[in-house]
């Protein structure tokens, strides 16, 4: 039984941005996840994506605050060469349709951990992964 969650870029951004379409869904879920009931993961690639987006839109202080807020409670899964190339192969096999390279690394890590992924990207569900919120897949 999985007690692990991998949080995707879309979920972090939806929780961070009060103006995001998915904020009202992301906010209570994110709050719930931080309560310590589950093992929380994200990947080094996702951290880079979030940092870049927040840095570009809100500036360095917000981006730094974001990273410092997740560091103590998230296990950062460092994407190594083998996962990177496994993701590449998966993406090539799908001819680039659906998940992108970063998403494929997330999918592989999620599968390896036996986790669910917190995301607003339907492509994860379409690839057979367990996703939250559940409605995203339907």
């Amino acid at each position: 039984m999985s007690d692990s969650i991998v949080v995707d870029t879309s979920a972090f951004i939806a929780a961070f941005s009060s103006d995001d379409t998915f904020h009202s869904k992301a906010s209570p879920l994110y709050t719930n996840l931080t309560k310590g009931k589950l093992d929380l993961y994200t990947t080094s690639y996702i951290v880079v994506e979030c940092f870049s987006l927040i840095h570009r839109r809100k500036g360095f202080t917000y981006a730094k605050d974001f990273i410092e807020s997740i560091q103590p409670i998230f296990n950062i899964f460092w994407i190594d060469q083998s996962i990177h190339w496994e993701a590449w192969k998966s993406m090539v096999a799908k001819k680039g349709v659906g998940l992108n390279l970063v998403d494929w690394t997330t999918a592989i890590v999620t599968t390896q951990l036996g986790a669910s992924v917190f995301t607003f990207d339907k492509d994860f569900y379409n690839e057979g992964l367990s996703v939250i919120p559940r409605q995203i897949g339907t």
Partner: protein
Amino acid sequence: MQKRAKTLTSQQKDYLAQAIIEQYERDPISVEKSFPEVVRILQNSTRRIMRQRSENRSTLTELEKGKRLQSLCKLLEEMKDTKGFSREQAIQALEDAAALVEAFPFDPISISDAQICKLVKIATGLSVTTKGRRQTSVLKEGEPSREVYLLRGVKLSLSWDKKLMSVEIDPKQMAIQARALSIIGIGRGMPPDMAERHDDYLVEAYSER
């Protein structure tokens, strides 16, 4: 003489499948080179199993869930009248909340952080705070069979039959959670479709540098 393909017994098939899976776990790349179709099937079935497992993770039946929720809501309503609310009721409410959280960790339960803190205070006398040292209140002696976090830093130890045995408050963990929650909703003025289209916004971010 014509050779006939040997039919494998189900035991041999199981052995063969197990051998391939073990080899795949040791060295996925070489197995994929020789049997790409087998690896694709393995990856797809693993993902399907993971999804089924996490969707069926409940340790409470629908009936039990309903009873626990009803009991919790009733007790929280009664807690509004602090004077008549007993320690036993607070313990019962914590046990209900713990059973629900343990069975449905993905679902936000209908109890606020403030209500959890109040219940802990009534049940144990401990103040839930982000300052000070770690504190534990033991209600029943013995070896707990499960631990449930109602909040980060608020750990409930329970017996096999989900009775509350002790409560531990870790102010350091509570401060960490407060820090984690501090980023929720602070990104005002960002595009409303950024979560959904973050790839496009990343391209924009990188191209402007």
